[in-house]
């Protein structure tokens, strides 16, 4: 009940954001949070639910970014460009997955890092295609059903719809038999094989799903900035997305969203007031590990429960087990 009510309130607040957030600037920040939240939701499918830590996901985010910008620049219509970009993205993701799923654990992390760096290097050097560090400009945002997304409010709603679809799809997936299978492969991969599951294929499908949302976020990012350069594929970008997932709470539905909000707000809003915001962001990550190692969302829930019990006079220890 409480959950449903909270979800309804959050949904209303998001839907009414243009009313209570004055000014396009902060609405744009909110759009950015949603874009990164989609990215983090996608990455979390691997990191949190498959137990596969990727340090190369910015590569997928970036490939979609470049593909749509390139296709539009080459004269394709927006819809064709978006679909084409998704096709390119899925092909890249499939190759990425086939290579990296040869390993798990640290090996997986290192392979994804290497592939990510190779994609980044290609963005710099394959100048004919990518424009090198000058990047590619996207002439205009798309106009779905004739609605212009040029301004902050319509773009925000467009992003919000995509975000809600992403969130719903991830929620459905996690509750599905396939989602349960994925979590099983995270906890006991060998046992899962012995139970009749195709661990590799389950991971592969999760990778595709993860790549899909990472790439959709890349598309939105390209529409938002109307510009793409190698920076989006850098190791720093991959690390940033991973930090969002872990700091918010990996393997939880809402964690990545909280992590995305934390990083975007620190980078773009707090940095206007705090000169050493980068230090502060690092310190927040360290503090999260110290005080809520499971991440912001599950950690706050745990602290909140303890506080609630204490307020009601129940000894804290008694509430736990």
């Amino acid at each position: 009940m409480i959950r449903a009510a909270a979800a309804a309130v959050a949904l209303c607040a998001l839907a009414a954001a243009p009313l209570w957030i004055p000014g396009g600037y902060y609405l744009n920040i909110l759009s950015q949070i949603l874009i990164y939240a989609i990215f983090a939701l996608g990455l979390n499918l691997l990191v949190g639910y498959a137990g596969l830590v990727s340090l190369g996901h910015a590569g997928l985010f970036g490939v979609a970014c470049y593909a749509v910008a390139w296709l539009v620049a080459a004269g394709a219509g927006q819809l064709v460009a978006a679909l084409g970009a998704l096709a390119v993205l899925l092909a890249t993701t499939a190759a990425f997955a086939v290579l990296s799923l040869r390993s798990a654990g640290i090996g997986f992390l290192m392979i994804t890092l290497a592939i990510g760096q190779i994609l980044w290097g290609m963005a710099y050097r394959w100048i004919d295609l990518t424009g090198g560090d000058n990047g590619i400009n996207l002439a205009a945002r798309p106009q779905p059903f004739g609605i212009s997304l040029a301004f902050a409010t319509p773009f925000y709603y467009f992003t919000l719809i995509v975000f809600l679809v992403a969130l719903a799809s991830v929620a459905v997936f996690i509750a599905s038999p396939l989602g349960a299978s994925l979590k099983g492969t995270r906890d006991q991969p060998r046992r899962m094989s012995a139970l009749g599951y195709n661990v590799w294929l389950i991971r592969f499908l999760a990778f595709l799903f993860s790549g899909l949302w990472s790439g959709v976020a890349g598309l939105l990012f390209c529409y938002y900035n109307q510009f793409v350069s190698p920076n989006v594929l850098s190791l720093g970008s991959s690390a940033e997305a991973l930090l969002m997932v872990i700091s918010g709470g990996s393997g939880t539905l809402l964690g990545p969203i909280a992590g995305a909000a934390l990083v975007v707000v620190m980078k773009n809003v707090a940095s206007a007031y705090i000169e050493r915001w980068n230090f502060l962001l690092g310190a927040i990550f360290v503090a999260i590990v110290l005080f809520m190692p499971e991440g912001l969302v599950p950690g706050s829930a745990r602290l909140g429960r303890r506080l609630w019990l204490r307020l009601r006079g129940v000894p804290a220890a008694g509430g736990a087990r």
Partner: protein
Amino acid sequence: MSALAIKDLGKSFGGLRVTAGVTLALEAGERRLIIGPNGAGKTTLFNLITGELKPDDGAIALFGRDITALPTRARPHLGLARTYQIITLFAQETLLHNVTLSLLGLSPLRWSPFRRLDRQAVLIERARAALASVGLEALAGRPLAQTSYGERRRVEIAMALVQQPKVLLLDEPFAGLSVDERKDVRRLLASIPRDVTMLMIEHDMDVALELADRITLMHFGQIVVEGSRAEVVAHPRTREVYFGS
């Protein structure tokens, strides 16, 4: 036709031969006990049968079908199930979820990304029934991490049984259990339908012998003696293996 037929199976780790020329045939419905000192290669044999290890040479057949090259994941679908000596379950999940996962492993439903697992009534009822059959129905909703060792052993067995295997491999099902728990598990194993072929590793001869039709003694990765209880006990090689004389 044998339910499970193993022919000349060999496996080495580096220079160490852990299984050598093992040949074994189980008739349908047979209950076979494997005994042998630690390091005799019993669990390795199980891992070879399930495919978790790849044999260097030899062949494994299930009901006449050669499964030597078949991946591990395909074997449960042919009716092969096993339990583990070292418990490898899903510690954060409930008992019911553990058994449901086992059941789901054989169901095409496992590929569905859309349906809700917690609404698959048929599946869940079967899992619940399996838990009831091992006497754990009351604990169905409890996370596995909060159960006792004996309860987990029974979950292991429930997970194997729920797959309705034709051939069941049991790796030390009585290990680490109390006297009372042993009785429970013994009753449980005795109640398994007679048409299920069973291969069991066990050190506790007293309980195991009651369940077994025939006994195979392994030593240094090889089969030393095979026969009825009396034959094996009486065999001089058995003494040699266990008493070193």
